């Protein structure tokens, strides 16, 4: 098969039936299926403790799964070769790592491992984000540590970028800068990006796809604009709402019984479907979706 075609059709990340538990505790991931296609930018949403970090670590092979298959660029994550590892960029949740290095030492250290290193990008970001190269990382502020962590992950122009709450310590200006960088430099290159964050406005700016995580599974993944166009909060008596869902061929994402035989259903309508006149259906925001689906 043509190599270019293979690259385009192989998912960047492919998880199937992944189950993971810590020790004898309950499973954090329960038969989770998830695919990220090349060039997709996916925001991973889930409540605190839902297992987002575990999922991101498992997809990178940093956690052993008890069942299922996990592949990155078609390779099992437990045995990634050097060429594949050179295509991955990872920003972990903690940014206070390598704290006995200076920023400059850290970047030189990582540069020594990668066959490709975009020094111009590093220099540009270091100067734009105003990070003192000769300061020890332990003495940088939380925000600067996080920026440095992002620079390190972007420096080798990865094809898959995994970001675990990358903007948690950044102020609004820092977040805007980071998102601009992500859009201009990374997404434009066709990089697959997955990132978890609780700042929904950031996701709305850059993530074209949303993945909602709940109870150890990805409960829904779809392009954000489609979700906002197609998902409606339907209210009425149970029979009315159920009839409406059936008539429209909609998918009920979540049902909430209300008092006096009434019901509220979060439903995804087929593309291009309009609610009939008189039907009680409200458009939803990303925050509504987060509250209902996670």
């Amino acid at each position, binding site marked *: 098969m043509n190599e270019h075609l293979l690259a385009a059709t192989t998912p960047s990340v492919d998880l199937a039936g992944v189950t993971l538990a810590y020790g004898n505790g309950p499973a954090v991931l329960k038969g989770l299926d998830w695919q990220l296609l090349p060039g997709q930018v996916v925001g991973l949403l889930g409540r605190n403790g839902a297992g987002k970090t575990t999922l991101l*670590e498992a997809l*990178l*092979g*940093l*956690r*052993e799964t008890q069942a299922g298959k996990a592949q990155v660029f078609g390779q099992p994550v*437990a*045995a*990634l070769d*050097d*060429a594949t*590892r*050179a295509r*991955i960029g*990872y920003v*972990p949740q*903690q940014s206070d*790592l*390598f704290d*006995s*290095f200076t920023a400059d*030492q850290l970047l*030189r*250290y*990582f*540069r*020594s*491992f*990668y*066959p490709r290193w975009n020094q111009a990008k590093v220099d540009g970001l270091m100067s734009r984000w105003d990070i003192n190269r000769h300061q020890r990382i*332990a003495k940088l502020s939380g925000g600067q540590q996080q920026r440095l962590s992002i620079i390190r992950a972007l420096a080798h122009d990865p094809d898959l970028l995994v970001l675990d709450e990358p903007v948690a310590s950044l102020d609004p200006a820092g977040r805007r800068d980071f998102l601009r960088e992500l859009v201009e430099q990374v997404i434009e290159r066709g990089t697959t990006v997955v990132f978890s964050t609780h700042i929904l406005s950031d996701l709305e700016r850059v993530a074209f796809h949303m993945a909602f995580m709940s109870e150890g599974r990805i409960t829904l993944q779809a392009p954000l604009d489609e979700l906002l166009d197609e998902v409606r909060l339907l209210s009425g008596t149970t029979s009315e709402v159920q009839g409406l869902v059936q008539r429209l061929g909609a998918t009920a994402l979540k049902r909430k019984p209300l008092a006096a035989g009434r019901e509220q259903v979060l439903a995804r309508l087929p593309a291009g479907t309009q609610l009939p006149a008189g039907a009680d259906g409200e458009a939803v925001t990303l925050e509504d979706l987060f509250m209902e689906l996670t």
Partner: protein
Amino acid sequence: MTADPVAHSSAPVAARRWPQSRAMLLAPWHWTRNDGGLWALRLYGAVALLLLGAPAAAALWWMPLPLAAVVVGVAIFVGLALVWGLQIGVLLRLDHPRVAHTVPGHARALRAVALGLWLGLVALCGLVSALAVGLLGGDGLRTGLVVAVGAATLLWVLALAIRWWWLWVPICLGFSFYGFAAWRHLVVASWAWLQQQWQAQPVLMTLGVLLLQGLVLPVIFGHGDGRHARAYASRERWRKVTAASSAGRMPAWAAYGLWGEWLGLPWQRLANAWLSWVCRQATPSPRSVMARAEVVMHGPHHWVRQLSTALLVQLVVALCLVATTWQTGLSLRVLLEGGHVGISVGLASMALTAVMTLPGALWQSRREQALLVLLPGMPTGTALTRAVAWRQMRQCLWSWAVLLPALATVVWAGKGWTTLAYVAPALPLSAWLWRDASRLRESGQAGAVVPILLCVLAGGLSAFLTSRAPGALLPWLAVMVLLAAGLLAWRWRRMLHLPQALPAGRLG
């Protein structure tokens, strides 16, 4: 009638103070219980009881009653002083500057508890000794007053020295320089003057001393100002460093604050130079990759730092020995013979440094390892596990190599065979390094104490046995070498079936 949603305590102030004091006095017990360390507290308590109770029981059995009473009294006082030290440490931790600044009556309660406990212990010591001496037919009042003033002073000094650690320096220097005539004369003259004053007015002098000390004691607590905040932060830093050290996690120099950072600067420079070197020489070969990964994996315990420290310590000891021989005219052989127990313990500790520190270093750098394993060139699976194990063992072997000149010198001095016997059990303990790193857990005090305890016990036993039967030394050394080889060979094969070593502790 409905209950008032906001409870206002109408109890008198004195009645409210008891629950406060009780909570403060019970804090050491509660904290230990909450940390799951009650077993350790019981263990240390039993050891202390044994160490203090055995001499007291022996004295009561074998010594004449007056002398036995003194031994028992000293044992009881040491026990009380331990409790006092523990309690003061906890009260100082409770003395948080923000709490002192914002919670009404907190600082006052701390001072009251410290003063009350101090007075209670002093009164107990005085009364018990007065009664005991009275029953034995002596001057109970005078003895009680002497003991009270002595106990008060010792407990007072202990509290101050716990608050201001640097007070230990003049205390130690005071004892160390007792050999100097001028200092000795000054101490003796002052002591005689104090005795004279006390003999003249024992009750007044005792009350005066207690009043003075009682007025000074509360200054160990702060007022919730900036000075208090700085002092508290510094104490907390030291406490964390001490806790980490006692659990086998030697902190970096920077953890000791600015002074520590300054003192650690030469080692930092050395480590920086090594980092630059390995990055400049980088190739995709596993050896080069692991040399760079090792810088992060072992962090402050990297071999460059550890070996340079071991060499420096040996150099300083050698210089001290040379200076002492030059000053005193004693031969080096005599000095080494006299200090062979301390030297043996020192050498065994240095031989165990890698074993004691590297698992902790792996645990500490586990989050960084998540990034390391994603780097191109890093071995994976068993290859990585064995590469990590080899790096650790190599560091252990280097530690031994650095010790060899010192060991040879001690052997040459005559008592060296005992030292060799003492150090030898550290060799098979090297196998402790090759544990399943993926299931590593944060090392607690017990985990850190086990190898040291084993080494001390085995070393002491082997030194004792070989001193009784010197001919057994060589077979004993051979057994230790074979045991080490066997254990290491077993662990090396076992690694084939272990999960990948890094990131460490992920399966623990």
